[in-house]
């Protein structure tokens, strides 16, 4: 476990020193700003950040893979993976270190939306508890997306391909499942809703803690981190 912290710091530093991160952050803030102005800060509307959170969920499907694409794939591409593999650290520590590194960066990115909240508080009296719980949901969804991004990054040495794989997986679980859930029969509907990310996230934006959703996010995050670890492990003996 003590190896995780240095790896986290290393990853964090890499994120903050990467120009892509700032470009992604800028674009992310432009999108969130737009949705905030047009969907949230509309006089007469209910004072709620739910429209913004819903929009951010969609934006993150494309933003997070861009943050995570270089996490492992770059190591392969630049050859530093050998150093990492031979270092006295486990694959699990490597993956967790990278995960936490990107996660902290993501949390910092979320913090940049706090000014929007401050503006909203200036013009209304929203239920702060609901909004804060929504941020908790954003962290959970971010963790899931990062774990998927890391998994994709482990699968290939090409960063762009890693990003595309991650976007593909996240789009399937975010957009496609949500869309097709309305068209299928009841049994398949139940299955789809069980893996429907926006549906699970929705409860958090409503200030409702549903243990189903909590278990879903945690378990799937752990699953993808596990899969990423296994993929990385497999590089040793291939």
């Amino acid at each position, binding site marked *: 476990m003590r190896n995780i912290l240095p790896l986290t710091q290393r990853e964090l530093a890499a994120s903050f020193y990467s120009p892509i991160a700032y470009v992604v952050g800028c674009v992310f803030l432009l999108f969130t700003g737009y949705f905030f102005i047009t969907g949230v800060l509309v006089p007469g509307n209910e004072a709620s950040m739910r429209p913004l959170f819903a929009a951010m969920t969609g934006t993150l499907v494309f933003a997070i893979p861009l943050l995570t694409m270089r996490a492992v794939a770059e190591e392969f591409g630049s050859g530093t993976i050998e150093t990492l593999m031979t270092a006295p650290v486990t694959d699990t520590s490597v993956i967790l270190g990278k995960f936490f590194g990107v996660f902290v960066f993501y949390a910092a990115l979320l913090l940049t939306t706090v000014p929007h909240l401050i503006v909203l508080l200036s013009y209304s009296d929203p239920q702060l508890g609901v909004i804060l719980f929504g941020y908790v949901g954003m962290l959970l969804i971010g963790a899931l997306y990062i774990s998927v991004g890391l998994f994709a990054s482990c699968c290939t040495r090409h960063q762009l391909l890693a990003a595309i794989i991650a976007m593909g997986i996240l789009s399937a679980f975010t957009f496609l499942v949500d869309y097709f859930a309305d068209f299928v029969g009841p049994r398949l509907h139940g299955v789809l809703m069980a893996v429907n990310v926006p549906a699970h996230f929705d409860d958090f934006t409503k*200030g409702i803690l549903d243990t189903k959703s909590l278990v879903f996010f945690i*378990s799937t995050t752990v699953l993808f981190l596990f899969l990423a670890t296994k993929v990385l492990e497999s590089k040793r003996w291939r």
Partner: protein
Amino acid sequence: MAVDKHAHTQGQGGDKAALATARGRRFFFGANVIVVTLIALALVVAVNWISQAQYKRIDVASSGLFGLSDRTKRILDESAAPKITFTSLYTSTAPDKARDKYLPRIRDLFGELEDYSDKIEVRHLIDDDAKRELIDRIKAKYGGKSGEYREAVDLALGTWADTAEWLTATAQSYGQLMQNRQWISGFATFAKIQAELTRDLDDLQQAHREVEEAAGGQGLPRYEEAKRKIETTNSAIKGHLEEAQKWFVALEKAAAMMADPQAEFAAASLGKLEELRPLVTELQVTIGDPADESVPDDATPVLQSFARQAKILSAWLTAERSRVDEFVGANDVVSGHFMWAVKVNPLVQIELPDVLSMTQQNLDEWDQQIRQALGSGQPKDVLQSVVRRLRQVGSDVANNLGVWDKQLQAFLATWQKIDPPSKELLEQAKAGELFTAQIAGLTEIETKLAALPELKMEDTVSKFDQDNLVVVETEDQVQVIDFDTMWPQSDPMGMPGDEDIERRVFNGDAAVSAAILALGHKEPFATVVLTVYEPSSGPPQMPGQPPQQQPRYGPIPSRALTKIRERLEQSNFAVKEWNLANDEPPPAAEGDRPNLYVMLPPAGPPQQNPFQRPPPDEKNFGDAEVEKVRAVLKAENARAIFVAGFQWPQVSFFGAQPAVYGYEGLLRDDWGIDVRFSQRVIRGVPDKRDAERYGVSISRWGHMRLNSFNEDNPIGAPLRARRCLFLDVCPVVQAETVPEGVTIDPVLSVPATGGRSEFWAEPDVIHVIRQIRSPKSDGTVVKSPEAVDPPFTVMLTAKNTETKSEILVHGAGMGIVDRYLDERVMRLGAEEQISFDPPPTENGELLLNALYWLADKPTFIAAGPVTAPPVQPIETGTQHALQAFTIAWAILVLAAGGVVMYVRRR
């Protein structure tokens, strides 16, 4: 470096072994990874599976904003239905009902419902195929009852098809008879029957199409509409056929009688004609020929003789007229023949017997004149000129009676010459073959319709034409929640901005729970007794005449409460009526089910004519009726709502009669509540130019917004965020003296405001109306000096701690009548555009909440919409600044990155 002798000496064989070992290692690691991955996947699936089955939902932060209310949960738990399906049909793309805006909250609600109970299934339909499937399913739900309607409709359409065929043939054959000028065509009624049959055929075909469309078109069959159409058309056509049949039968009887020349009337008529001729001749002979210029010197004997003869003839004519009238009275049909009419001139036609009357009157007049002339001693030449004049009169009388003679003979003769086609028709009428079969068929339809059970599908069907619906189904019932019920208009207090902006608030929880309650009818909570005073007869129109057989109604007639009754029954209340004018006791409570009395304002006394004493048997609401009500309220745990409101003074020719409210004394003396029914609460528009003047808007006059409910009182609290519109509101306040043991709480008030209030209670409404109608009016009015400014209450509850009785006095209750609850509210928006808002159904909800409270079921009071506060208005400049800020913030992050890159490079 040590040499691996083993590998070296082995050579190629050694390489193969090493390779096989590496492959084996990869296989082992690979298989291991796959197995472990599968295990992990299975573990995740298992964990999620378990969490789906065993989970908890905790409203951590939303304070009921998104969760189900306790009321809804309780209603769901108590619902007997094993399965309830919620289907959303939100498909509208119109800006004011956009699916994207309104559907997400529906999804939230459905999600909560699905999570709460396993017996709930939810669906969201967005395409037409799915909608059609839903409609088919709903059609099937009404299977049993709608099957009977289907049978009735099929019977009607089948019978009508045959009737239409028959009508076509019959109308054509009658038309042919008229064209050929057959005997029967001489009767105007026959022509009328033929025309009616033709019209009936058109109506029948039209109705056939409409019924087919209603009962079998796209969407849900509108069986109630089809039934109404069938009833109306059937009844009209059957009525026409029955009338026609009656006429033909009467005609046949008359023809049978008149065809015999020896029959009484014919023989007597001919005999009378024989009598008449000499009388006419005698008259003419007496007076002389008009061509004869010579007149006797002494005209008096001639005139006297003429007068005598005229009198005899006049008496004969009178008797003859009576005889003929008697015959026609008994055989009315004969007077319909064209020969029974005589043309006096091209434009004027009279009945034949009128010739006798005219002639008789003429003779009487001349008789009078002759007597006057002779009695007043007129000179000789005057009398002679009278003689000359009378010669013409005699000639005219002879001509007129000649017409009578000739026409009557011709008329009698025509009955002897009935042609075969006409005879055949008469034979059929005699044999009962004329319309009997058709009338029997139509009667069968009538009987079938009368036996149909109530379908209660109309409301559901009519709603399916609208956009944005939620359909709630159980196995055999359906409720449809329309858009205005799910998203009623809101009126958030203190929200700046004008009333033109339509804001809606989500009321899904209450709407859904009301729908479920309506579906699962269980034992009613209580019996609502609508108490009225409606005497069944009014005063006579004129003295000495019997009383008018029309009930006298109060300002809220019981017949105008069908919507409220329906709502009460759907909400699990039984409904009864108690008319205090009928000397009957109040309905007895059934078992444990309490009676909740709704005391409607009694009918006031009729307008009094000061020049006339009121009839002794005139019934008015008085002490006897008050005592009846008092006795009810004195019982332990009595519960009642007194519906009151502003009572308009009765204005008549004799002046204004002050309004009365029958329960005024009882409420003041027994409960310490003062109902100021002669004051009307007005909400004006403060005039910016003059602090004393107010504009009076038509919309505010008829639909006054007021929703300052006491937030601590469960009756009105759920409606605080709703658009509540009232009619004819009066103050209901605590009296100066409140009896001991009575506690009073406000429910709805008109609050005081810091500055100038828009509201006031006006005791002289006529004064306000006069100002508005005055030619010099600028549209603004001044309050009367006795006007009362807020604060004052308009709705109160009172509890008697001794008897544990509770009442509610509702000073804004005039809006519970059907017309008010049904009519959409007109709004004049910006640029004077007229739009229509949903009807003010909140009046019904308020009454319902009050009844739940009285029935000790406060948990059944709908929680009302829970909304997050709205975003306040933002000035345009600030909006632009905020937009710029969001862009700048994003660029700042990018710039920060640039700085970091730069510093790092250095």
